[in-house]
């Protein structure tokens, strides 16, 4: 189970926290929580959704505890390279993911960041995002809209729009 799902949890945690070590800690804590509360799991529902729910809550907790990470000058160069690259299937290193997320989603609130990451970066359907976050459709939509507008402003400020 850990082998099957650890990459998905890591992907979510890295994009949310923009820190590789913190992301690994979240992966570890997620599976401990799964182990501890496996009796609460409803087999009628998707296991992945349940796993994402636990991981999301832990990411939000970590985000609240962590001090806000400010983008570094190198982060902007990473974003420039990514935008300039025409290869659609470009391979991104973890450090590049960290830099891009730090550049784009730095000003988002934890809830906006979670909705944006799940919908936009992980590509999950909105019904699943509603189940994971516990928000209704309208709240998911409005959080995603605000997140996208903030990122658009950021990109405009950087001269990409």
């Amino acid at each position, binding site marked *: 189970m*850990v*082998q099957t799902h*650890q*990459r998905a949890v*890591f*992907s979510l945690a*890295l*994009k949310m926290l923009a820190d590789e070590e913190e*992301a*690994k800690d979240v*992966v*570890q804590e997620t*599976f*401990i929580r799964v*182990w*501890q509360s496996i009796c609460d799991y409803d087999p009628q529902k998707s296991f992945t959704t349940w796993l994402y729910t636990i991981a999301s809550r832990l990411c939000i907790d970590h985000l609240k505890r962590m001090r806000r990470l400010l983008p570094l000058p190198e982060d902007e160069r990473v974003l420039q390279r*990514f*935008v300039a690259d025409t290869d*659609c*299937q*470009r*391979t*991104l290193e*973890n450090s590049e*993911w960290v830099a*891009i997320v730090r550049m784009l989603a730095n000003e988002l609130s934890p809830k906006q960041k979670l909705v944006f990451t799940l919908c*936009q*970066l992980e*590509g999950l359907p909105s019904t699943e995002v509603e189940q994971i976050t516990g928000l209704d459709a309208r709240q998911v939509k409005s959080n995603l809209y605000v997140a*996208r507008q903030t*990122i*658009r402003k950021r*990109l405009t400020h950087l001269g*990409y*729009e």
Partner: protein
Amino acid sequence: MNKTDEILERLRTAQQPVIDDPDMLLERIVGSLDVQDSKANTLSLTGRVGDRALLIIRTVLSIAALWLIGLFIYTTSDTPAHQLREQQGLTYYTYSISNGSTLKDVYTSRQRKGNSTLSYTQLRSKLYENK
């Protein structure tokens, strides 16, 4: 499609982050699960002993509370009747808690009560004995 949408779409289709050393992370997770498991076993053992002690304490306290409630009802229901008899000017000897609570007090008060049930002739002689 504007530039923002294009960048976000490319991020969505880009290769997802990978764990640089998945086996090490797996080992770390499994290790922490073992620790959690042993902790849970210890907690459940101490929990069982604690539960039993708590049950005994609760039982003892419940019995004590019931005994106190019974005592309270007994004493409060006896006092008004005693006071009423005194108000009516009748002489009764009861063994309420105010007369004492030892076994000797109770015995004496019973003896007095037995003596107080005099026959008609005894009462008449008592009534006219000073005349």
